[in-house]
């Protein structure tokens, strides 16, 4: 189990593969579900050329750790990995990675669903987009979009 806040770009598939390789659970998990959120070059009807993600370092890390513990307990996961970018982000960069391992498929998919909604609605991160007409704080995350 681990939750990282990353100030530099990461390769999500490589991160999952390497986390999984270090795990002793290879023969025990029957299911892995993952979710990756990436930066689009378009939001809310405007082109976005860059983004800066601010966070509250101590609270954000504490929040991610708690989220993982809750997901593992509630869905009886074998393992869970969260990585979230901060700092300057470019189009196509992965922003968030969630991966859940369990004996059974329903647990992994439900936990992934829950974790991304918690991250979107409660984790202390804030996005500022750079558009043609300047910089702009994103006001609020949408429900499920």
């Amino acid at each position: 189990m681990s939750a990282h806040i990353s100030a530099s770009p990461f390769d999500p598939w490589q991160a999952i593969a390497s986390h999984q390789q270090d795990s002793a659970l290879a023969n025990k998990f029957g299911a892995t579900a993952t979710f990756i959120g990436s930066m689009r070059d378009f939001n809310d009807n405007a082109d976005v050329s860059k983004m800066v993600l601010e966070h509250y370092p101590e609270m954000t890390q504490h929040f991610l750790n708690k989220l993982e513990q809750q997901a593992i307990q509630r869905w009886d996961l074998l393992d869970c990995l969260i990585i979230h970018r901060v700092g300057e982000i470019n189009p196509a960069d992965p922003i968030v990675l969630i991966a859940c391992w369990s004996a059974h498929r329903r647990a992994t998919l439900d936990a992934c669903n829950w974790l991304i909604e918690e991250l979107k609605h409660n984790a202390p991160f804030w996005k500022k987009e750079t558009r043609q007409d300047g910089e702009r704080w994103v006001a609020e995350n949408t429900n499920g979009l």
Partner: protein
Amino acid sequence: MSIQVKFFASLREQIGISDTEIESAATAGHAWDMATQNAARPTNTLVAINLEYAQFEDKINDGDEVAFFPPVTGG
């Protein structure tokens, strides 16, 4: 002892402070008033005390860290 007060994102820019210290405060709402010199508080402002979400009526103790920020937009 004292209370550390932090502001993040758009609130940090509006208030013009990222980090400050106040002597004491009865509640989180009181800490806002002292740190901002009674600036109007946007209705959707969130507050955390010692890294946990809290309410503006919650009591503040010496040594606490109080943070104010707008709705989160991570993920």
